[in-house]
């Protein structure tokens, strides 16, 4: 345009190039007349070159500017429109239910805390900032008496920039240190797992390591759930009060009979909840490694034992359920059973034939063997599988033992299993299976989590209702007239079955180390709870006349437990001798359930109690 204004030759300037700010000088008057094509050719060449050059430069500049500005615009748009309004930080009020910790609480069924995470402050120091280490150390030891003065002084006068002085202070200690106002000493927020119930629930709740990862019990089994939902506590089916009663009575029993351990379970037969579970000896979850590692062993779920006569529950249920045997059928219990090299005998041989009720009442091994002879090996194996004795219980604890099941399952195995030897299961197996035998035949998988009141309970019908009804009477019969008399509690209609098993050490059964147990249930007219007590290696005392069998050791403990937990569980007290109760619980030795006849027992009165040991002659090797 400028070129045009100055009236330059129209052919020199190109309209496209003149858009820039190029100055095209007017051609100087030449002193020499030059040929017409030359002046036009020569300036045209130089000018064209210059114009070309500047044109390219301009284009490059424009391109760069465009690129940069486009990039800026895009970034601007992204920052403002796409990045959530570009607020640097958003402040949100905390939710009420929020928790500040990273691991959920564990509570019992009533909401009492069993495990919780507490925020604690740990004390550390930067020695560079501590001006007078002696004074600071003296003050710190004054506030925290468990610190060692020399140790603290050494730490405070060192060269490092960071030393821990004490981890996990209590709030009181923190306040005390805070009040000292020592420069260079500060607190660091940490979390610590805390178990208010202490050893009472140690085998159930378990414990965590230093980094708050579950290492045992529910802490391990539900590690993921506890860390993923820190806000909602994990509610167990355990009742702390029952736990206390159970532990107290077990501890008393262990002490009285100088036993090496014990296990106890309180079980809700209606929905499979484990209301209480104790294994002695137990440990302090705050310091699980400080004691004997044996204390970490959970006898109630991890330990598998030969249950002894308690298994006659399942033998009888099997016999009734096949329909081949009725309660009044007679079985020979006078002559020992010989199979192969083995001879099976009774602890107290009554030298006569017994009804099924009497076999159960006197806990006769011979009668049990005769019963299973009639039922058959295959039926027994199928039944025991149905009862869950061939796999772990499915309890949520990582400490769940695998049962020891004979393989192959031969005739001799079926004989010994009929009275509880030759198969090893955990107490939890026994309790869950016994619950299904008396609750109407419904097997519930045992659980440690509280069931929702309206939730569906997974069930499986394993025995018929009639079998279950008869088993209730048999349970009751053992307590009224059998080996479990000392478990009786007036008003609670207790029933049960004693069990005594000789322990196997190596290849031999020991004569004087046994597992004495009692599986009690109440109220037998409408069973609601099972109380199971197992005592490991009880020693007979003078008070028990030299017996250390289930009827003498475990049954009284179950009686005492039922007496205390009955009111806590809201079980109504009834009169055992009213017709309604007798109608559903009565059984006599002849196998009659008609209480109105009140027949005199067809046999001689039962012998002294405690005669429940299922024993082999010592010279035999049962396996």
């Amino acid at each position: 345009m400028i070129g045009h204004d100055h009236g330059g030759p129209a052919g020199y300037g190109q309209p496209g190039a003149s858009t820039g700010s190029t100055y095209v000088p007017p051609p100087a008057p030449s002193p020499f007349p030059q040929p017409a094509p030359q002046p036009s050719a020569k300036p045209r060449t130089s000018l064209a070159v210059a114009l070309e050059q500047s044109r390219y430069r301009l284009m490059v500049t424009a391109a760069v500017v465009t690129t940069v500005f486009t990039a800026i615009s895009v970034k601007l748009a992204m920052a403002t429109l796409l990045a959530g309004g570009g607020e640097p930080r958003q402040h949100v009020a905390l939710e009420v239910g929020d928790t500040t910790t990273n691991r959920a609480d564990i509570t019992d069924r009533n909401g009492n805390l069993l495990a919780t995470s507490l925020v604690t402050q740990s004390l550390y120091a930067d020695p560079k900032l501590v001006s007078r280490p002696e004074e600071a150390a003296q003050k710190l030891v004054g506030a925290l008496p468990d610190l060692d003065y020399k140790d603290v002084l050494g730490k405070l006068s060192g060269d490092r920039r960071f030393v821990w002085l004490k981890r996990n202070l209590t709030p009181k200690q923190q306040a005390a240190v805070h009040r000292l106002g020592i420069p260079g000493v500060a607190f660091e927020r940490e979390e610590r797992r805390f178990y208010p119930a202490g050893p009472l629930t140690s085998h159930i709740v378990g414990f965590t390591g230093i980094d708050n990862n579950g290492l045992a019990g529910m802490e391990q089994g539900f590690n993921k759930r506890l860390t993923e939902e820190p806000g909602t506590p994990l509610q167990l089916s355990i009742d702390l009060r029952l736990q206390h009663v159970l532990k107290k009575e077990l501890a008393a029993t262990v002490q009285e009979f100088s036993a090496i351990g014990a296990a106890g379970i309180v079980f809700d037969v209606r929905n499979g909840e484990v209301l209480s579970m104790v294994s002695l000896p137990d440990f302090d979850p705050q310091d699980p490694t400080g004691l004997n590692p044996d204390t970490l062993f959970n006898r109630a779920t991890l330990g598998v034992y030969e249950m002894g006569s308690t298994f006659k529950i399942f033998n009888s249920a099997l016999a009734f359920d096949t329909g081949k045997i009725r309660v009044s059928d007679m079985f020979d219990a006078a002559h020992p059973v010989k199979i192969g090299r083995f001879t099976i005998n009774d602890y107290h041989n009554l030298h006569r034939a017994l009804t099924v009720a009497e076999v159960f009442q006197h806990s006769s091994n011979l009668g049990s063997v005769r019963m299973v002879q009639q039922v058959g090996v295959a039926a027994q194996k199928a039944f025991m599988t149905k009862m869950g004795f061939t796999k772990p219980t499915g309890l949520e604890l990582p400490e769940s033992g695998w049962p020891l099941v004979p393989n192959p399952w031969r005739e001799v195995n079926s004989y010994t299993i009929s009275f509880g030897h030759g198969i090893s299961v955990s107490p939890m197996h026994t309790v869950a299976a016994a619950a299904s035998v008396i609750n109407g035949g419904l097997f519930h998988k045992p659980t440690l989590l509280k069931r929702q009141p309206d939730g569906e309970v997974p069930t499986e019908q394993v025995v018929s209702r009639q079998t279950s009804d008869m088993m209730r009477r048999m349970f009751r019969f053992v307590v009224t007239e059998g080996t479990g008399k000392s478990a009786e509690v007036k008003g609670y209609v207790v029933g049960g079955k004693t069990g005594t098993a000789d322990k196997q050490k190596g290849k031999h059964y020991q004569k004087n180390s046994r597992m004495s147990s009692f599986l009690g249930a109440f109220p037998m007219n409408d069973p609601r709870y099972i109380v199971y007590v197992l005592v490991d290696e009880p020693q007979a005392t003078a008070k028990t006349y030299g017996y250390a069998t289930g009827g003498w050791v475990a049954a009284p403990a179950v009686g005492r437990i039922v007496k205390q937990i009955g009111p806590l569980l809201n079980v109504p007290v009834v009169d055992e001798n009213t017709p309604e109760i007798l109608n559903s619980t009565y059984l006599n030795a002849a196998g009659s359930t008609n209480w109105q006849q009140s027949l005199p027992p067809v046999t001689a009165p039962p012998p002294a109690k405690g005669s429940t040991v299922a024993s082999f002659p010592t010279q035999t090797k049962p396996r």
Partner: protein
Amino acid sequence: MKGKTWLFWGGLIAAAGGVLFQTSYDVQDLEEKLAGLNRKIILEQESIQVLKAEWSYLNDPTKLEQMAQAYLTLQPTEPRQYLAMDMIPMRPADAVPPPAQALPGKALPGAPLPPMVRAPGTGNSQLAAARVPAAPNNNAAAGIVPVSAQVGLAKPLPMEKALERAPVVVPASLPSGAALADPSRANRIKPAALVPGSARAPTEKSAAPVAPAAAGKLAPNAPTARPTELASRPIPAPAPAPKVAAAAPAAQQPYQPKPTDSLGLLVARLGANR
């Protein structure tokens, strides 16, 4: 014109800028406040968690049992002490005899205690005696002094508890049995004025043979203002004066639940008076 437009827009921009500036600072303030509140909430939550843990720790049944054994005289409960609600019979009208109104000097010192009452320690009478002078009117309280004078009144303990709870509420000028029977006092209330004749007639009839002194003057069951109101308090001064007179001899012999007395039988069966 052009300048004015510029001025207008310039002013608008400046105003908007000022408002934005102010708002931004307000928001910053609020954010700081919120952050402070959140910190406080976290602190409170942490202390609540600590308190919860401590509560659970202190509620450990093992500890509680040890402490109960050490400091309380309570025993573990037994099944026989529990009863379903529907097993408790309804209270019959005359099941529980009215508390014996012992006139001063009339009741025996050794009169046995009714059920549900623990044997009073020796300190009880002293306590009561110490408390009675605190009542505003000693003379008027003479009617209830037998409690402190250890005349073996039917219910010393509830009385003491009532005094303990609300010593002021218990009127010193309580109309005792004697006071109720006092014609001059009874004269003040005119049953005829308060009770319609139809309602009054039967009570008068029933009361007449038992307590002639009070008959005609006082309708015991009448909804009178003061005497009944006072007597309905847990004080051994029941409203119906005739009944009081009738029950006075009953207090002199050991309390035996009658066959009709289902509640009393129940209490005896539960062994609460042992």
